[in-house]
């Protein structure tokens, strides 16, 4: 079962590059001794990963990806870096770029570039999809702040939904830093999210602020660059997208995962938490045990912490006291030694979930004996919970206050958007917030 990755815009392409790099390194570049599995199982794993993410073409391993950007520099850089790694390559023919960017303007990306380029982009996607023996679905990487990733990304997602009504579509969206990468980022985010809600199956949210904290506090990187942040994102994505099996030996295909995580179409926002995160030097000195990892991860979920440091242990699962984070569904991915011995009952606690869902069904766990990215034991939690509410609220607040002053609105109207479209998007997202708050 294969997944086709769509990398949209500068952010999408940069994250995509790191994502494939992480998978390739972990799968192909790992010594057998460290993997904790016999040779045959490892070979099976490698074959699974190849089937899922790569295709064998012209003698080299090509990523199943379509790269789209409105200006050529980023795609060129990403392709060169992939070639330099020696582990995989991007297919030069599966790239689409124009000369002129979208200028951080969602309307420009969606309406202008969308209608101009959709045919060609869809052709490339069609070609990539036909290469797959069995197509699981599409994984789109995009940002919310810019013009291409957000605007064109939303348009293409819609087209893909129309063209492939039975495939699963998961969009990984990068939430910009709170303070300024782009001034109109809040508008772009509101417009994108509201459109994605109609056409996508799941929206996986990754926040730059949080990833940067992981880099500075856990990985001890002094001067954090975007490629460091993207490496962390790549690690998180790979940790749950790589093959794993559930208790009854079903594989974690995209469809299986999404069917569990998104039981209701009004609740599509997903977030990821991964532990542990350590700098390379510290890995050899650490000894993590499963009970500890599970406990930390549970508390991270309840207290809404994004990493294992600075967790607020005061938040408890009780109706009195501090409010805790409620979830719709959780998927746990355990990789490494002794995964079969792990006790995951803390995630099955009924208080974590709304009363109208049977708590037994709310947790799905997937395991793989093979270690991931040099960590002896690692755990990843993908949850459909109230975590994104704070950021979402914040963004809508800002966007609304800008909208009431009508600031920058003329720039969007210039390209064909109307004030009603803004209002529709605001209304859609307010509904989403209310739904999650009422969990």
């Amino acid at each position, binding site marked *: 079962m294969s997944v086709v990755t769509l990398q949209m815009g500068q952010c999408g392409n940069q994250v995509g590059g790191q994502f494939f790099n992480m998978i390739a390194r972990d799968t192909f570049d790992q010594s057998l001794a460290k993997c904790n599995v016999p040779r045959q199982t490892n070979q099976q794993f490698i074959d699974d990963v190849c089937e899922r993410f790569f295709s064998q073409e012209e003698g080299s391993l090509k990523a199943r990806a379509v790269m789209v950007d409105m200006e050529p520099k980023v795609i060129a850089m990403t392709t060169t870096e992939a070639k330099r790694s020696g582990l995989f390559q991007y297919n030069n023919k599966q790239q689409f770029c124009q*000369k002129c960017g979208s200028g*951080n303007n969602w309307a420009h990306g969606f309406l202008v570039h969308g209608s101009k380029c959709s045919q060609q982009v869809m052709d490339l996607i069609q070609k990539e999809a036909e290469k797959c023996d069995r197509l699981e679905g599409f994984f789109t990487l995009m940002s919310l702040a810019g013009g291409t990733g957000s605007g064109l990304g939303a348009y293409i997602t819609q087209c893909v939904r129309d063209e492939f009504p039975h495939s699963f579509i998961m969009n990984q969206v990068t939430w910009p830093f709170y*303070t300024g*990468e782009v001034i109109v980022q809040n508008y772009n985010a509101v417009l994108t999210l509201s459109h994605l809600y109609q056409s996508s199956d799941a929206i996986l949210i990754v926040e730059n602020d949080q990833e940067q904290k992981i880099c500075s506090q856990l990985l001890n990187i002094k001067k954090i660059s975007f490629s460091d942040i993207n490496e962390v994102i790549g690690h998180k994505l790979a940790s749950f997208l790589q093959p794993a099996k559930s208790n009854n030996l079903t594989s974690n295909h995209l469809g299986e995962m999404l069917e569990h995580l998104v039981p209701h179409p009004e609740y599509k926002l997903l977030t990821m938490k991964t532990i542990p995160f350590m700098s390379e030097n510290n890995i050899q000195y650490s000894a993590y045990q499963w009970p500890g990892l599970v406990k930390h991860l549970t508390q991270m979920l309840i207290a809404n912490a994004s990493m294992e440091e600075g967790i607020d242990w005061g938040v408890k699962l009780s109706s009195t006291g501090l409010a805790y984070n409620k979830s719709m569904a959780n998927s746990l991915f355990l990789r490494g030694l002794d995964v079969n011995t792990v006790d995951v009952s803390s995630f099955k606690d009924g208080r974590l979930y709304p009363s109208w869902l049977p708590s037994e069904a709310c947790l799905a766990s997937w395991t793989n004996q093979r270690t991931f990215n040099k960590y002896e034991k690692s755990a990843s939690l993908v949850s459909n919970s109230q975590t994104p509410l704070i950021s979402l609220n914040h963004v809508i607040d800002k966007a609304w206050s*800008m909208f*009431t002053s009508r600031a920058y609105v003329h720039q969007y109207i210039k390209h064909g958007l109307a004030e009603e479209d803004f209002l529709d998007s605001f209304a859609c997202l307010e509904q989403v917030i209310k739904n999650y708050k009422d969990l």
Partner: protein
Amino acid sequence: MTQSIVVQVGQCGNQIGFRFWDLALREHSSLNKTGLYDDAVSSFFRNVDTRYSDPADIPVGHGLGKIKDLKARAVLIDMEEGVVNEIMKGPLRGVFDYKQLITDVSGAGNNWAIGHKMYGAKYKEEISETIRRAAELCDCLQCFFVIHSMGGGTGSGLGSFVLNLLHEEYPDIYRFVMAVYPSHEDDVITSPYNSVLAMRQLTDNADCVLPVENQCENIHGKTQIFGEMQALVDIVNKINQANPKLAERKSSRGHVKAGSAISTGDGGIVKGKDEKPFDSMNNIAANVLLNMTSSARFEGSLNVDLNEITMNLVPFPKMHYLVTSQTPLYSVSDVHIPPRRLDQMFSDAFSKDHQLIKADPKHSLYLACALMVRGKVEVSDIRRNIERLQSSLKFIHWNRDGWKTGLCNVAPVGQPYSLLTIANNTCVHHTFSGLRDRFVKLYKRKAHIHHYTHVDNMEIEDFSESLESLTSVIKEYETLEKQINNPAPSLPRLQVI
């Protein structure tokens, strides 16, 4: 990769333009060691084969062709021949094609009406042809840079005419204007008229205006320089104070690394002895243009294209006057002194001494601010500095986090990193108010009006309409600035039933 065309009008415009091309060549020559004609060079230059009498254009192709001969994508317009002739006699003559020049003999006599109405009508066809030719040679034209002064006749009159033309014929291409505003004690008496008449055209037709201020002053009894830029004068003085030898252009063993000051043209084609006294000032303005386009030309982890600048910094259609500042001014050469700290660079960018107009943005309201960083700076440095500076700067309530960041990997010539801030700040209304007051002083008495109304098609209503336009722009900025301490109450959010 997109291309840009530079249109330089009038004496001032051509002098700044001339420095711009010199510095652009310097930058590309220091970065492009292999001499290949790639996309970055093609954004401002054409590669031509001069064996043909009409030099044949060589496109970028795979980016592996060697540079044969570079021609600037520029149009030079002046109504008197002095400046353009000097350029064509000087060392940069090979960069310009004679077909890109439009000149006349008699000049515009510091009269906006002659520049705009008379010469405009006379040369409209020719200008339109020349620009069309330049535009056709571009693969994907993204914007026009128009450089001119506001106080004179040609620059302000014909310059604003050209702007109108560009708006009409190329409505989708962005128009950036670098306008040099006159000072309080400008020698040209009618400069307030010329400026206000031109401002109205700028308000209506430009996408973005970068005002640079021009104030005449007798500096420390040294040679009085004609029509100089006070803000820039102050900046150059600061650089010279750091190293007095720099002013005499001797090789500096002292504090400042040779060739690193943003006011120097060292390393360019024009050699030291040919440099004119006000070249230092023009270099600073030229550097602004280079740094602004650096992210569009070179690679970086957070690219900022020119259309993103207009998108993010112009919240309302008429409020497109942007204040710029550049740091650091120079880099220190003595290896024992640690390099000027990165954070210092960010703090300096917001001090009033580094702005290119005489204004104090810290005490006014920021509507939006863009930080264009070049060189070895990481995103965490930028974030840290934004957090640090956020508290001392006042942003309008609906744009409290109104920062746009751009990161370009390629450092400018002679410095490890640099920062260009482009901000939309309400402090510009002080400059404009001063301009309006000087205009009204003359207009009340109808002084010199007859020189203007003599010209065909020039009506007295042009004056009053221009004054109205200027007043409304000032009022818009002032209204926003009033919100500096009491923000307007915002509507409550949509409620879900």
